């Protein structure tokens, strides 16, 4: 364990004493490994909640932008442009410092919640763009066919357009899901103690910043790669023979 200084992960964060099980000593002191895992969990939780927010608003706004109703198209466009044209870190600062100054009740909301809302809304703009592109990629005849058989507009979307559009946009959605994990590191700027914060603080405390950043890098890579493999699996599972090059 002492090779390459890796034993530091099994030492507690107060006195640097070696902890047998590598996580928690009898007196309740936690180790750097424990801290790393907590930070990793926070980063993943942040990404997961943000993804739910992003998918909900992204898909909704993407669909609105392809409807025949001008008002709905405007709403979808405005939403997308608003969240797409402001840098992520600025959006998080606005959610964390500016909005609570205007609405005092929000001061009680933990930074974690504000961070995943901010991250989710930012990503929703990107997803909305992809969903819109996916729907527009379908031949116009599909929409007419739906209307010709007497479907209402929601039914046309539900039974004709969306099943195909979602399959088309799965690859870019994979990228977005991976991005959201990596972008969660920005939450460090609004005091969420996630993986990047762990890397910086522990690097300073142990004087081994390279080792700590490597550990964080591996954690980010593993998270993003697992998502990549999972989405690949989904892609294969929902494949329709004869469509999008599937056999």
């Amino acid at each position: 364990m002492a090779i390459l200084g890796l034993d530091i992960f099994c030492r507690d964060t107060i006195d640097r004493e070696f902890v047998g099980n590598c996580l928690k000593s009898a007196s309740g002191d936690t180790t750097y490994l424990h801290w790393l895992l907590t930070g990793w969990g926070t980063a993943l939780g942040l990404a997961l909640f943000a993804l739910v927010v992003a998918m909900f608003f992204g898909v909704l706004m993407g669909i609105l932008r392809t409807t025949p109703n001008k008002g709905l198209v405007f709403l979808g466009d405005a939403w997308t442009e608003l969240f797409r044209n402001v840098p992520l870190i600025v959006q998080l600062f606005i959610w964390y410092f500016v909005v609570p100054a205007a609405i005092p009740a929000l001061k009680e909301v933990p930074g974690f919640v504000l961070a995943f809302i901010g991250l989710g809304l930012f990503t929703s703009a990107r997803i909305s763009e992809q969903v819109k592109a996916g729907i527009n990629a379908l031949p116009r005849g599909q929409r007419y066919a739906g209307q010709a058989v007497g479907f209402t507009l929601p039914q046309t979307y539900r039974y004709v357009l969306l099943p195909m559009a979602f399959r088309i946009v799965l690859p870019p959605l994979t990228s977005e899901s991976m991005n959201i994990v990596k972008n969660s590191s920005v939450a460090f700027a609004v005091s969420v103690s996630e993986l990047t914060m762990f890397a910086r603080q522990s690097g300073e405390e142990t004087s081994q910043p390279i080792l700590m950043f490597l550990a964080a890098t591996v954690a980010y890579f593993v998270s993003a790669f697992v998502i990549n493999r999972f989405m690949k699996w989904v892609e294969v599972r929902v494949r329709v023979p004869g469509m999008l090059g599937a056999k």
Partner: protein
Amino acid sequence: MKKSVFAIGALLVAGLAQAQTLDKIKSSGTATMGVRESSGALSFTLGDGKFAGFHVEVCQRVLADVQKSLGLAKLDIKYLPVTSQNRIPLVQNGTVDIECGSTTNNATRQKDVSFAVTTFVEEVRIAVKANSGITSIAQLKDKNVATTTGTTSVQLLRRNERAAGIDFKEVFGKDHADSFLLLESGRADAFVMDGQILAGNIAKAKNPADFRIVGEVLSVEPIAIMIRKDDPSFKKAVDDSIIAMMKSGEMAKIYDKWFVQPIPPSNTRVGLPVSDATKAAWATPNDKPVEDYLTKK
């Protein structure tokens, strides 16, 4: 695998085995000073790429002495802003020759870098809003306590938390200005940090009267100018210059200028007269790490 480990090791050694700083300064005619953007009155930016502060002025005088002893007609000082996280690697790899910020001299860091004699002894304190009614660390139970990532105060807080058996929520600012914003915006109930950084941030606040520094001294830390390790000739040059200032009373004058008199950019006072601990460090110049201070208590 083994080969690559050796290769990385060789690279590291090559990086560390820098030419001696004095030779480098002499041959290039330049010296790079590591400075901080917001480390209270010790080292801060005036904007526009200009830096000032107690340690910055001390370093300027040290470099002037170095220039004299090297017989250089002209010495170009480059200012490079560093952060809590990158200051040690930058000193190690030779980017920064002399770091003049607010670095605590501790045993862990002494493995990587070297420190000049202690020029300032810091007391870690608690800043709160004046109307909060908090007067000691015991009252911080279940409160949000802000501190800055990449500083020793984070560990200190943890240690205090365990010793006193009180539980509080730590909120980490990414730099001192950010931590103070946490306190100012009500996201945190207290900000635990070096006394002079707190005083400096309060002095710069919109309403300095809204904040107060309270409570017991949580820790005493020697703050020193940081230089590369294993460079005895440069360390001697820096130490000699600083000790001369301490003996001549010049150090006290520089201290007074930055911590007692109004300072730029807003011409406010930090209002932190020299502490007994700092006076003691000037009377008997030393480069002892913080650990020696702790056992003395």
